[in-house]
């Protein structure tokens, strides 16, 4: 096994062992950040590898979380109407809430609904060769639409408060530390699976086509590939990752509201990846953890400065670190290699991002 491979396993082993050396509060934060890391891997796939910048991943995350939350809400209501519906004057459970009484339906639709939405949106834009910033802006408009919808339909979605006050999942109390540790471990396992799958995807022939689409979509088209199929697939895949993150998020945090899927959270997701390194999967994971740790540190201590810091981070990363932390690591390694007299290939951006990490 290579030296780098060991580092990966060490990293994930440290995550697995976290319940033994972190306090309960820190562990719940880390669990949340790992959910975000799942989204980051998906965004790295579409942005770093395929060149699609999506500002709409908050929606896929939110839809996944809402589907799971609907099940949790029904379970904790014990056959009665959920509390917010009573307050809004609804007397009967709406028909589309009914199937969510079954956990399997809830979990599968938490993945399927966001994936269908992503496939629909991406098919009808990429088919017409609408790309680049146009797609980014359209995906941002999707966020606005869904946030307005979820706030407006208060009697069905809980409005701005969202869905909260869950008690149990499959009969286990959500508040007990034991359940939380199990959920944390499930999150780490899922993250590892997503990471391995994405890594396998990017080093395969498929991944090379993705990079080719990023660097010259028309050339790929002239070579006989259909970029639309690839782009729709990878976009829907990243939506599935975001939805999975939403499920685990709502189980651990116990709350989902429109504010968590809005414009600002969606664009923050892109920032995590930019900080970590857009074309590096492990960079995206580390970026999500580092940026969110910084966020919780700043917003605990200096809430006013956080926005300034966030804005500065956007500008700084784009201007000075276009390849993020992973890029810093790469250039550090290259310099070290030169010092030691090893012969390194010049390693353009492209070749680095195909094999790198």
């Amino acid at each position, binding site marked *: 096994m290579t030296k780098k491979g060991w580092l990966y396993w060490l990293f994930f082993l440290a995550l697995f062992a976290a319940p033994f050396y972190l306090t309960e509060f820190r562990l719940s934060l880390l669990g949340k950040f790992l959910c975000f890391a799942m989204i980051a891997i998906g965004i790295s796939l579409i*942005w770093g590898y395929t*060149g699609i*910048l999506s500002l709409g991943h908050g929606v896929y995350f939110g839809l996944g979380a809402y589907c799971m939350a609907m099940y949790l809400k029904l379970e904790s209501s014990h056959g009665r109407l959920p509390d917010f519906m009573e307050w809004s004057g609804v007397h009967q459970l709406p028909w589309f809430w009914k199937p969510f009484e079954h956990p399997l339906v809830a979990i599968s639709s938490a993945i399927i609904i966001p994936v269908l939405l992503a496939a629909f*949106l991406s098919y*009808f*834009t990429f088919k*017409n*060769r*609408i790309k*680049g*910033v*146009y797609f*980014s*802006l*359209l995906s*941002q*408009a*999707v966020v*606005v*639409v869904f946030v*307005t*919808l979820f*706030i*407006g*339909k208060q009697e069905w979605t809980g409005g701005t408060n969202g869905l909260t006050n869950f008690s149990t999942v499959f009969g286990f109390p959500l508040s007990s530390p034991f359940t939380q540790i199990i959920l944390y471990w499930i999150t780490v396992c899922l993250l590892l699976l997503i990471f391995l799958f994405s890594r396998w995807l990017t080093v395969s022939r498929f991944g090379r086509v993705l990079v080719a689409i990023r660097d010259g979509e*028309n050339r790929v088209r002239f070579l006989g590939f259909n970029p639309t199929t690839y782009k729709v697939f990878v976009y829907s895949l990243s939506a599935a990752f975001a939805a999975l993150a939403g499920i685990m998020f709502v189980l651990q945090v116990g709350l989902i509201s429109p504010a968590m899927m809005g*414009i600002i959270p969606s*664009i923050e997701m*892109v*920032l995590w990846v*930019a900080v970590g390194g857009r074309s590096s999967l492990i960079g995206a994971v580390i970026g999500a953890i580092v940026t969110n740790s910084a966020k919780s540190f700043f917003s605990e201590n200096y809430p*006013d400065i956080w*926005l*300034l810091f*966030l*804005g*500065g*981070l*956007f*500008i700084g*990363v*784009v*201007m000075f670190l*276009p390849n993020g932390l992973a890029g810093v690591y790469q250039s550090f390694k290259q310099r070290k290699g030169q010092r030691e007299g090893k012969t390194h290939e010049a390693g353009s951006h492209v070749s680095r991002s195909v094999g790198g990490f």
Partner: protein
Amino acid sequence: MSVVITQVFNGFSLGSILLFVAIGLAVTFGLMGVINMAHGELIMVGAYMTYVVQQIFAKYAPQSMGYYFFIAIPVAFFVSALLGWGLEKILIRHLYHRPLDSLLATWGVSLILQQIARTIFGAPNVAVLPPEWLDGGVRIAGVVFPYKRLFILVFVILSIFALYIYLTKTPAGRRIRAVTLNRDMASCLGISTRKVDAYAFAIGSGFAGLAGCALTLLGPIGPTIGTYYIVDAFMVVILGGVGKLIGTVLGAFGIGLVSTLMEYSTSATMAKVMMFALIIAFLQWKPSGLVSVKTRSLD
């Protein structure tokens, strides 16, 4: 009958506001191809400048309060234009070939500007009192047309006319168009493209200031007023097509009219959802928007 007239008027009114917010974008995004997410915050700056001018008038010249708006218009324009010029000089000129990155960087700028506004003016909204001569409305065929809405409509038509004249009749405007059509050729003919870029961006930003000035007539303003409009404004430019002003005008009034009519027949939330579905459906038919410049280049 009066219901129809009211709805159509409301549609035009909403369209005029959207158009105002989108004019600046038509220059920076449509002509130059730069995504400026801080455009909304330049609108906010224009709105706060109007507020500042009003406060100054209230303190030093209360007798001529009625005319503060005419001072506020140029002040809002020039302050926003200056900010935009600085933004171009410091940040955007490095990112012309990386549109996705310029989107993210200018988003960062917008967060910083919002926080600065919050620090200076406070987080709660502030109210700008519109001049007294804009109170009330004119009554035609049993329908009241508020003066404020009519004023915005006229204001936006004058602004877009001025921009059109500037771009097509003056040497400076023609240079902008030359550079946006064929940068290398324009540069060969002795046009300083760097200078033109900065000017064009400043003008687009100045129009954002004017939009902010107009928005103060509609209600209180706050640090996040820009984000409220920016997504809709980009939709206008995407729907209208880039490169031609007329596309932006049609896009704005189209979205304004259709969404007002849908809001009337369903609800505000559903109208937003349906409007977006309509835009996606429309792009199936014309992927490059209503009016587009024909080109044979591939990308």
